[in-house]
């Protein structure tokens, strides 16, 4: 190992890069694998209903699905616009 290599090795190792990439990928694949297929459609339709009454943007709503041993949770999160900004 040359002196140059020695200094190079203080950079991020390829193994830790691999781990980081895998953790992100695996988490994403697990969540998309487990969630019901109607979720994107549900999110779209809910947004349409809410937009009838409240002026919210496309990203104001998030739907997530979680599953553990004895229950399934459908979590719906709507961020309403700031009251102050709504005032004319």
């Amino acid at each position, binding site marked *: 190992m040359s002196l140059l290599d020695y200094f190079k090795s203080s950079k991020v190792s*390829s193994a830790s890069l691999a781990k980081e990439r895998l953790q992100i*990928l*695996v988490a994403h*694949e697990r969540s998309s694998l*487990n969630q019901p297929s109607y979720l994107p459609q549900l999110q779209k339709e809910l947004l349409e209903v809410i937009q009838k009454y409240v002026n919210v943007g496309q990203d104001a709503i998030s739907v997530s699905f979680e599953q553990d041993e004895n229950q399934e949770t459908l979590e719906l999160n709507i961020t309403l616009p700031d009251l102050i900004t709504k005032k004319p």
Partner: protein
Amino acid sequence: MARIIVVTSGKGGVGKTTTSAAIAMGLAKKGHKTAVIDFDVGLRNLDLIMGCERRVVYDFVNVINGEATLNQALIRDKNCNLLYILPASQTRDKEALSQEGVGRVLEELKKDFKYIVCDSPAGIEKGAHLAMYFADDAFVVTNPEVSSVRDSDRMLGILASKSYRAEQNLEPIKEYLLLTRYSPERVKLGEMLSVEDVQDILSLHLLGVIPESKSVLNASNSGTPVILDEKSDAGQAYGDIVARYLGENRPHRFIDDQKGFFRKFFGSK
């Protein structure tokens, strides 16, 4: 009560057949009557690794179709009389295996054998699905490499949702991690995912680590499961795995870089 073990991975070339041959031999050598089945229809290779390729007369598909009895198709191993091999068919018909047929053969084997090892083909097609469908335990063979870890995670998802145990709401398949082709030197240099890294990602119970070893190719060249090469590191690692699976408490080996100062210098292996 008989137990069905599936050796699976998703990705090809990680050591499923090597592992199937080794653990089947290990279980038989420990006194348990064991059968090992090749599920890779069309691409059978377990017979070569077990060194019985010239003794194949009937195969798995023949038994399912009623063209041969189980006893006619099972090949008794030349090294251990408690070990039997059920070879895959070389037919090109992928539909040759049926869930009903596989279930029937496994039920019959369960009457006579303590352990039934199912060597899964790569991929997530029918053969791989049927190899794991009836399993009680799963040995997930993984290399410390990104594509293998990802595929193993996919297989875990399938094991948890598409097996007989999952469908019948029974106790889930017990999953174990076997990390193969491990190189402690490269882990130390930060060039390879470590055991801890892989466990962090897959959250699996580690059954053992098989080091990258010349003895694996030597064993397959000669058609003897590597576990019989008791002097080799890989052979010993498989020995440990079988012992741990059977409930013995053995500390993990081959994880740390054991090369001492002198061995490094003289480069002995």
